């Protein structure tokens, strides 16, 4: 049954047209067809959060969203959000706190954290923990991730942004 559908969407600012089987979910389309390896697949059940991407301005589980459902949508992955600088202070904070080891969860973590910072700029440590409990990490034990996010919230609350330290030779 090859009932491919014609769809088009914007991915990381680039307009994309394709024909695709309805059963293929968004992350498989992004990874296999567009070679955007940032979002990962862990459980394909919506539990682990490794597949988290942004569609029309909000985070979703890419494994629980069909590519055909993204027709006409604005899709953003870690690649695009890094390029735009939207995640710069979070990424720097993650590095400072060693909040990434293997990196498998990191794309999802950063996207989830970014939405928290946007929607709940005054989040407490407890609220940060609750919010990211939808993203599983097998390496870090989570504390460094929470610390990294809390640091960004505190800096932003002061009107500052954590910036990379650039050394000049």
């Amino acid at each position: 049954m090859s009932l491919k559908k014609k769809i088009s969407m914007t991915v990381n600012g680039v307009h994309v047209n394709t024909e695709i089987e309805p059963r293929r979910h968004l992350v498989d389309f992004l990874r296999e067809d567009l070679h955007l390896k940032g979002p990962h697949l862990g459980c394909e059940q919506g539990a682990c959060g490794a597949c988290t991407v942004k569609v029309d301005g909000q985070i979703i589980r890419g494994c629980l969203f069909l590519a055909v459902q993204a027709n006409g949508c604005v899709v953003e992955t870690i690649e695009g959000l890094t390029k735009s600088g939207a995640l710069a202070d979070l990424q720097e904070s993650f590095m400072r706190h060693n909040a990434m080891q293997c990196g498998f969860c990191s794309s999802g973590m950063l996207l989830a954290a970014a939405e928290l910072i946007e929607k709940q700029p005054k989040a407490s440590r407890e609220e940060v923990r609750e919010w990211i409990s939808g993203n599983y990490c097998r390496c870090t034990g989570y504390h460094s991730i929470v610390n990294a996010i809390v640091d960004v919230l505190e800096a932003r609350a002061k009107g500052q942004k954590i910036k990379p330290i650039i050394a000049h030779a």
Partner: protein
Amino acid sequence: MKAAAFDYIKPKALSDALSLLEQGGDDAQLIAGGQTLLATLNMRLSEPSILIDITDIDELKGISVVGDKLRIGALVTHTEIEDSDLVAKHAPLLKAAAPHIAHRAIRNLGTWGGSLAYGDPAAEWPACSLTLQATMVIHGPKGERKIAAQEFFIDLYTTSLEPDEILVATEIPLASSDQVFYFHELARRHGDYAVAGLAAVAQKKGNVLSNCIFTFFSVSSTPVMAAATQGIVNGKALNEQLIAQAVCTVREEIDAIADITNSAEAKTHLIGVLLERGLKHLIA
């Protein structure tokens, strides 16, 4: 694993969706938020031949006040309920319950109507709809019908929705100024299916509660209202003694069913714990 192949169609008109559903029969499934369905398809626990995407249908959208009721369209997402000013004002129980549903990414897509239509006994919305005395608005080949939430949830994953019908919206009476509410879920981790939960409302005057509704979820095949317990609490000054009596009654009244991690006895115990915390919160 990957879902088996299926066709996909996204009608704009409710009438088209209804005909497609009728034609498809057992081989068609509706998709709205897809947060339950797509996980099911990814595991090949279902292999429909066609998905009917209803997210373009206008009649299913939006939150509004119509007369003395709050109308919530089936397609309203959990996040939209969490963020809605109208909900905060007229059905604050829902705003309190929303953050308990899974996690943010799922709440951004999952829908009010989807949760009600499945009627998962552990879900928050079926219990809340009972507590808030919602009326379900349903469309089928014979037109529109309405049914009270109390008659809607029949058995495990079984609602009064016929296979050829679509839940369009719910109507909820606006909260009165003296209404108090309590929502709590006991779970091992945030976002887990509840071990036991309580969605309660009442009208409060001093330390007297009336028109109480206590709905327990994740303890049986459907959400369960504790009618006898409500009867005991209604209209009487709530003191330590009455609370103890109510806790006793609710444990006898509700026949808990075990699930894979918790025995019926554990759930029965927790039902009493939740009621006690709830009553103390309601009169505080």
